[in-house]
């Protein structure tokens, strides 16, 4: 019996309609997911994402390993054959950089003096955590990477990520051993930056291309081609002064930034364990009620008590001396005003030499003594 003569001959499977129903149901579910995910400030499905990334991360790491070995092998071979030319290039580079090193040392010294004189509190050193990129998503709608360090190493959402060239992006999701880094080129990336030459502020906006746009540039003519772009630190998301790239005019006429981080492969990165300005002072201190610290102060030593009493006695003496001087001046002014004046103007006095001309003692300002 042929198949077509069998019991399946008259079966009319309404598969097109059932498939259409399945498509519509799945599409409705996707739309609901999309609305709930896009409208939330942070994705409500972050645990799901973290779980998938925790699984995909090691797989990507395994796949990336042979590629990395191949890269190391090619670097070794290349280094062997091009050692002489590279040595010459490095010597030239070293000679160029030595004056810069001297200037940097001098400027660092001057800057430290200025900071001390002005009482500026410099930003504390930021701890770093090194990680390796294990997966990479590219394209117009997504530029992100997975790195093999997560919350177990202290990495938190928002931490800036740099490589040896400059800023790469920031952490947007963490799990135990894997973190997701959104690059500066991602379409959702916004980074406050400054132009080093003019100190003008702008916003670096990714659009999926290798060179993100500079938007909202403050000031006219604030940017020129070749200007160095740094992170401004505005908003507290990034520390100030992290190198980002060089300004260039795009083919669409907009200002764009050639990223320093693109000068080499983004393989090993460093996560700056920098959160925001609250890192400068503990959040407990910020949130503490006023004058809380008085209760925690230790008792003053005898030397401190003596110094405080001496300072108070000096201050009181200075204040009394100033008041005495002020009252003497006032009495002298009153006596001068009460003295009878002659009816005819006196004869013009002979001009005295300039060296002898002195202001009356009563008009002299009180000496600036001590601090109150």
């Amino acid at each position, binding site marked *: 019996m042929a198949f077509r003569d069998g019991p399946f001959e008259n079966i009319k499977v309404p598969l097109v309609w059932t498939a259409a129903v399945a498509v519509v149901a799945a599409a409705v579910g996707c739309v609901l997911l999309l609305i709930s995910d896009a409208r939330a400030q942070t994705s409500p499905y972050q645990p799901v994402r973290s779980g998938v990334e925790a699984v995909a991360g090691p797989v990507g790491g395994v796949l990336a390993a042979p590629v990395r070995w191949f890269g190391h092998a090619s670097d070794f071979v290349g280094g062997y054959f091009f050692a002489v030319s590279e040595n010459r290039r490095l010597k030239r580079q070293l000679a160029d950089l030595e004056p810069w090193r001297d200037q940097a040392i001098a400027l660092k010294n001057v800057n430290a003096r200025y900071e001390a004189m002005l009482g500026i509190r410099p930003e504390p050193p930021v701890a770093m955590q090194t990680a390796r990129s294990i997966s*990479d998503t590219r394209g117009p*709608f*997504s530029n992100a990477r997975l790195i093999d360090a997560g919350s177990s190493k202290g990495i938190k959402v928002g931490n800036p990520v740099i490589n040896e060239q400059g800023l790469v992006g920031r952490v947007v999701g963490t799990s135990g051993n894997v973190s997701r880094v959104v690059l500066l080129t991602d379409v959702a990336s916004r980074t406050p930056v400054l132009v080093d030459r003019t100190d003008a502020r702008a916003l670096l906006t990714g659009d999926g291309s290798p060179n993100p746009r500079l938007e909202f540039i403050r000031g006219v003519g604030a940017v020129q081609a070749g200007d160095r772009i740094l992170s401004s630190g505005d908003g507290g998301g990034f520390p100030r002064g992290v190198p980002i790239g060089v300004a260039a005019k795009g083919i669409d006429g907009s200002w764009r930034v050639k990223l320093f981080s693109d000068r080499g492969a983004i393989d090993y990165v460093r996560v700056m364990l920098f959160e925001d300005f609250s890192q400068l002072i503990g959040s407990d201190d910020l949130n503490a009620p006023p004058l809380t610290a008085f209760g925690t102060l230790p008792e003053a030593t005898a030397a401190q008590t003596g110094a405080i009493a001496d300072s108070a006695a000096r201050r009181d003496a200075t204040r009394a001396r100033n008041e005495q001087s002020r009252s003497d001046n006032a009495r002298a002014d009153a006596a001068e005003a009460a003295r009878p004046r002659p009816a005819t103007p006196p004869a013009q006095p002979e001009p005295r030499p300039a060296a002898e001309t002195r202001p009356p003692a009563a008009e002299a300002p009180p000496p600036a003594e001590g601090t109150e």
Partner: protein
Amino acid sequence: MRRPVAVRVVGPVQWIVIPALITVAVTIVLGTPVELFGLSLPEPVIPMVLAFAWPLIRPSVVAPLVLTGLGLGLDVFTYGPLGLWALSLLGIYAVVLASRSFLIGQDTAVLFVWYAACCGLAFLLVYLVRMIIDKNAASLLAMFGQVIPTLLLFPFANQMIERFDDGDVRFR
């Protein structure tokens, strides 16, 4: 008496599950951070091949659900809004399913034109939705950099259609 004819029944494992797993594997492999001569690996949207080929092979309830899963996986993998790629893949599936009676048996060139049109539609959908969500338009040049590798995958879709189209005589 006629001799019995051997019937080759191709189940969903052959034409849905295995291609879906291959798609996932290739997507992860192409996500490897490799740069050769300054160029990184292409990153086409590989599930678009399945979204175009599956409704032409045969209508199925399982295929849209698997396609949704692939799209959601792609959303997680690329850190996009959850449901966006799934929606665009389902859009391709719906268009091809609706025009299935016209497309069955057409020449390869016609299929390629439809494939290109469907991919363009899906990318346009994603572009517009991302523009609304991110309040920022993606670079068109960068988008072409993903559209073109995706279009170059058409031979795989065509091969799937030719292989599985008549795999089960009930759907001839």
